[in-house]
């Protein structure tokens, strides 16, 4: 086995052991912390695919995260009320239904946004993705049926057959499994020929076009895949926190996802997860000793952006002597 794979297996075992560690040390908040890191890691990793590999700076990625979350929330709401969405689609609390549905709906949203946004580039692309995210944000804020500004409480986590999902540790292990599968899929994706074309478009779009590749179509597919990943993360997050709110789609959330990608190191598979871990851990720890934690996050981010290339992962590699 390669050295990298051994590291990943050790990491996976550690992640599986987290609920036991939490119980032994009495720090039950650890499960919540690590769970959030994994979910944000999925979201950041999906953003990294278009941002780091594809060079598409999307400033509206939180929209798809939120869409995925709201699918779970809305389905639960109708299940709880015994009503049907738009009068035809009945609600459900089955995770085997809600997760795929969240991925599909987020993918559709990304297809719509991407098809229009990818006609622009540069600054205009950044701003138009932000604009679409804002539209989604204000849309959910204005829907009184689904809580408006307050969002939707999901009183019970979605069910999976044969599992007791009300148990926090069980839900956590489900998240670990989903993350592991997602990670492996992402690794295959970036090393596939499709991933190579996406990276080629980032490096030189005109050359790829000259090679006979329809760059718009490839970028759109990448954008949709990325939106689907964010939708998955959103759906998991709503299950984990049992709450869906417009805050999931706020534009500062998109900024945070970008920060995670940058902190961890752009254009690597594991980087966004490291970035998510760093940001979530920083937030929790700094928030514990000062209410002005935004100031410190801001300073750290500024230093990372101005002074490092390749984020934390780049730093580790530099110290480790590898390229």
């Amino acid at each position, binding site marked *: 086995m390669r050295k990298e794979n051994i590291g990943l297996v050790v990491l996976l075992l550690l992640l599986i052991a987290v609920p036991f560690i939490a119980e032994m040390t009495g720090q039950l908040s650890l499960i919540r912390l690590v769970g959030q890191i994994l979910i944000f890691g999925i979201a950041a990793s999906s953003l990294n695919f278009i941002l780091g590999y594809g060079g598409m*700076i999307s400033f509206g990625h939180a929209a798809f995260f939120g869409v995925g979350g709201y699918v779970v929330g809305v389905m639960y709401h109708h299940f709880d009320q015994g009503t049907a969405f738009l009068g035809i689609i009945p609600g459900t609390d089955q995770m085997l239904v809600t997760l795929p549905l969240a991925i599909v709906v987020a993918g559709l949203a990304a297809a719509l946004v991407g098809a229009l946004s990818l*006609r622009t580039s540069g*600054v205009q692309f950044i701003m138009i993705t932000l*604009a679409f995210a*804002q539209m989604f944000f204000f849309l959910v*804020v204005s829907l009184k049926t689904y809580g408006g500004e307050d969002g939707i409480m999901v009183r019970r986590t979605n069910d999976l057959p044969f599992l007791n999902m009300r148990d926090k540790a069980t839900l956590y292990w489900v998240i670990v499994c989903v993350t592991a599968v997602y990670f492996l899929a992402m690794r295959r994706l970036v090393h596939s020929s499709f991933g190579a074309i996406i990276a080629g478009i980032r490096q030189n779009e005109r050359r790829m076009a000259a090679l006979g590749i329809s760059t718009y179509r490839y970028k759109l597919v990448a954008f949709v895949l990325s939106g689907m990943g964010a939708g998955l993360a959103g759906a998991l997050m709503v299950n984990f926190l049992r709450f869906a709110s417009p805050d999931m789609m706020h534009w500062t959330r998109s900024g945070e996802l970008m920060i995670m990608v940058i902190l961890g190191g752009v254009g690597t598979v594991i980087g966004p997860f490291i970035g998510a871990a760093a940001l979530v851990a920083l937030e929790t720890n700094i928030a514990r000793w000062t209410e002005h934690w935004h*100031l410190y996050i801001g300073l750290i*981010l500024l230093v990372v952006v101005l002074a490092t290339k390749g984020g934390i992962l780049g730093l580790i590699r530099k110290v480790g002597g590898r390229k």
Partner: protein
Amino acid sequence: MVLIVEQLLNGLQYGVTLFLLAAGLTLIFGIMGVINLAHGALYMIGAFVGTWVALQSGSFWIGLPVGLAVTAAVGVAMEVGIIRRLYARDHLDQVLATFALILIFNEAMVLIFGRRPLRTNLPEIFSGSVEIMPGLPYPIYRLFVIVVGLLVALGLYILINKTRVGMLVRAGATNRAMVQALGVDIGRLYTVVFALGALLAGLAGIMASPIVSVQVGMGEEIILATFVVVVIGGVGSVKGAFIAGLLLGMIDTMLRAFLPRVLAGFMDGSDAQALGSGVSSMGIYLMMALVLLIRPRGLFAAGA
């Protein structure tokens, strides 16, 4: 009718505020190629300092120049200390670094002025209102804001089209490398442009402070609308910023004022209120998407 005129004037007043912010932002964008998300922070700093000094001294007229001076100074410090390092970077680094600046400036305001919003009274001579139409008294202060905004627009027009600095600014927006090759001290030009942008943002903040509530986060609320103005108007075009600013200011205000009422004709009152305000918030973003789909570089892009 009276109501429509009143809302149009409110829209105009919001529009000139947007223009003051967008004019600086579009120049910074167009000339230095920097996406400055923290431009709204300068607006906030202007509002905080201006209001605080006005409260301490008891006069709006002392708060105004002090607020302007402090904002311009912060702008220069920001350019020299941080923004300058971003010129050669890609957009991603710029977005993140200026996003970090937003976090830093917001917390700095909390540390200095506290979390409670600051409130001021209108300066004495502006506290009344004039009847501009039969049955429509309108606050003098808002008219003052509109007039100042239009005067600044005129001043900027003269500065950019008739002076040597303006010529360099226009040249810089069209072709940066060529200006540099012709021996212009581009570094100093950048600092001047950034300071000018900061000054305009500070002015917008100080003038808005008696109308809106001066609090942390006020910068973010308006900066997104400002970016919409800049992108619709065309990056680097002050003329575009002016037209798009006034247009968007009015459209946004009209939607907010009338859409909930129109919707209330079809549906339940509180639902109409929520949906109406949500959809009107979407309005400007929808416009930006439409404009970009038809003209991907905005209406009056410089250097096109």
